[in-house]
C-alpha cells in the first residue's frame, strides 16, 4: 500500500505539531501523520528517543524535526512554534499529547506531584495553544487534538490528580471549541482506554503490582485486550483530517468498550 506520495495522504501538505512524540501514542501518531503526508514537528523531554523518531521519519522520506521541549515552560513552547514556522512555514494541526500519571489517592499525593501532573497534562495545552492558534488562523483554519483519557470522563482508583487533570482536558477542549470555532479551528480530544505504552507499565510500577497481572486487569473490557498506540493514532488522524470537518468539542472514546459498561 503506497501512501507516501503527497497526492494520496489524508493530511497531505499539512504541518502538524506533536507533543509527547518520543514514545507511545505520540510516536505512533508522528509516524502515521508523516505517512499520511504531513510535515511533523516533534516535541518531548526525552531527547534521545525523540531524535530517533524524527530520524525514522526522515529515513522513510517524510519531513520531521525534533525539538527538546518541556511543555510546562512557556519559553520552550514558544521556541517550538517558532522553529515549526521557520522550517515548515505554517501550522495546521496541534496534537497536545504530552502527559504523565501519578497513581495515588489525595492522601498519598504530594503537592509537588499534583502541580507537576496538572502542569504537564493541562497547563501545557494552554501554553502551546495560545502560541499556535494565531498561526492556525493564518493558515485559514485547522485542528487541535488533545489527549484526555477514559479517566477524564469517569473516576478511577488511586488516580486523583490524573482524573482531575484529564477531566480538565475534556472541558478545556469544549471551551476552546466554542471560542475558536468561528475561526475555523476545530478542537477535540481523544479518551483512550488502557493502551500498550510505557505509561501503562509505569502505572504497574507505581502501584507495585506485577506487570502481567496489571495488564490482564487492563484487558478486562468488551474487546478483551488493551489498545495499541497505532489504534489511538488512527483516531487522532480522523480528528486531524477533513474527514471530521463537522466534529468539534467532542471527546472521542477509544477504549475497547471500557466505558460502555461492565462485561
Amino acid at each position, binding site marked *: 500500500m*503506497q501512501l507516501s506520495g503527497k497526492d494520496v495522504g489524508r493530511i497531505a501538505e499539512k504541518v502538524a505539531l506533536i507533543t509527547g512524540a518520543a514514545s507511545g501514542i505520540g510516536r505512533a501518531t508522528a509516524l502515521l501523520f508523516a505517512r499520511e503526508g504531513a510535515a511533523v514537528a516533534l516535541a518531548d523531554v526525552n531527547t534521545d528517543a525523540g531524535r530517533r523518531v524524527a530520524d525514522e521519519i526522515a529515513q522513510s522520506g517524510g519531513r520531521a524535526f525534533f525539538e527538546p521541549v518541556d511543555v510546562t515552560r512557556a519559553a520552550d513552547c514558544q521556541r517550538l512554534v517558532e522553529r515549526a514556522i521557520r522550517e515548515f512555514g505554517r501550522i495546521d494541526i496541534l496534537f497536545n499529547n504530552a502527559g504523565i500519571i501519578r497513581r495515588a489517592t489525595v492522601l498519598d499525593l504530594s503537592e509537588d506531584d499534583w502541580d507537576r501532573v496538572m502542569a504537564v497534562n493541562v497547563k501545557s495545552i494552554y501554553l502551546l495553544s495560545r502560541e499556535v492558534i494565531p498561526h492556525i488562523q493564518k493558515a485559514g483554519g485547522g485542528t487541535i487534538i488533545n489527549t484526555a483519557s477514559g479517566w477524564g470522563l469517569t473516576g478511577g482508583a488511586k488516580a486523583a490528580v490524573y482524573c482531575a487533570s484529564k477531566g480538565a482536558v475534556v472541558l478545556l477542549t469544549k471551551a476552546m471549541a466554542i471560542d475558536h470555532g468561528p475561526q475555523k479551528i476545530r478542537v477535540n480530544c481523544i479518551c483512550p482506554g488502557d493502551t500498550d505504552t510505557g505509561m501503562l507499565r509505569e502505572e504497574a510500577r507505581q502501584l507495585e503490582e506485577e506487570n502481567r497481572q496489571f495488564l490482564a486487569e487492563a484487558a478486562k473490557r468488551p474487546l478483551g485486550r488493551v489498545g495499541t498506540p497505532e489504534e489511538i493514532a488512527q483516531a487522532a*488522524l480522523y480528528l486531524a483530517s477533513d474527514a471530521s470537518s463537522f466534529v468539534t468539542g467532542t471527546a472521542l472514546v477509544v477504549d475497547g*468498550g471500557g466505558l460502555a459498561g461492565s462485561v
Partner: protein
Amino acid sequence: MTGVLRMMRLENKVALITGGTSGIGEAVAELLAREGARVAIAGRNESRGHAVMARILQSGGKTIFLRTDVRKAAECQRAVDETLRSFGRLDILFNNAGVFFPHTALECSEEEWDLQIDINLKGTFLMSKYALGPMIAQGGGVIVNNSSGWGIVGGDKAVAYCASKGGVVLLTKAMAVDHGRQGIRVNCICPGDVDTPMLPEDARMRGLDWKTYLAGCENRPLGRIGTVDEIAKAVLFLASDDSSFMTGAALVVDGGGTAD
C-alpha cells in the same frame, strides 16, 4: 485524489444500510460503495431506493435494494437473509432509519410515539438481532447506529425522538458489552443538524419559516449545519479498521452544538 492509486478502505466488505434511500443513509451507501463495499440498501421507498441503487451501479459499485420496514421482524430477517444470499457475508450494519415529529409530551399522539420508538429504537434492535448471528459466525463485524445530539442532551418539542435516540446510545453500549468478545464492535454517531430532508420537514411541522429555522440550526461553534457527506465520513471511520479499538462509543458530529 489525483490519479494515484489508493487502497480502498472497505474492500471485500458487505454493508447493510437501513434508511438508505435518502439523506445520511443515501450518502453512506454511496461512500461505502466508493470505498469498495458491496452495499445492501434497505428502505421503505422503492422509487428512491432504485434511484440510489442506479447511481451506485453507474459508478461501478455493487448494490441491491431491499424494500424493508424495520418495524417488522420478518422484514428485518429477510433483509439480512437477502444480503447474505446476494453477497455471501455481512460485515457492516448501519442502523440509520429514523423519523421525527416535533412534539411535547402533551402534544405527542400515541401513534407518533410508537412510530418514533419503533423505527428509531426497536428497528435498531431487530436489525441487530438478525445481523449478529451471521457476523459472529464469520468471526466479527461492525454495527453503527445513528443516534443524535438529542440522544445526549434534551431538545425542545422532541420527547419521543429524544427518548428513542437516548435509547439508541445505551442500546449501543449494551450490545458493545455483550458482543465485544465475539469480535463485534458496536458504536453510534450523534449528528447535529444536517442538510437532510428531515430538517425542512421539521421547520414546516413547527410552523417556522426556513430562514429563521436555519439561523437557529447554524447557531453552533462552527456556525453552520453539517452536510450528509460529513456524517458519512464518520460512519466510514467507525465501519473501517481505523476504529479497531472503538466500541460502545457515541461519536458526536455536530459542529460543536453540544459542547456548551
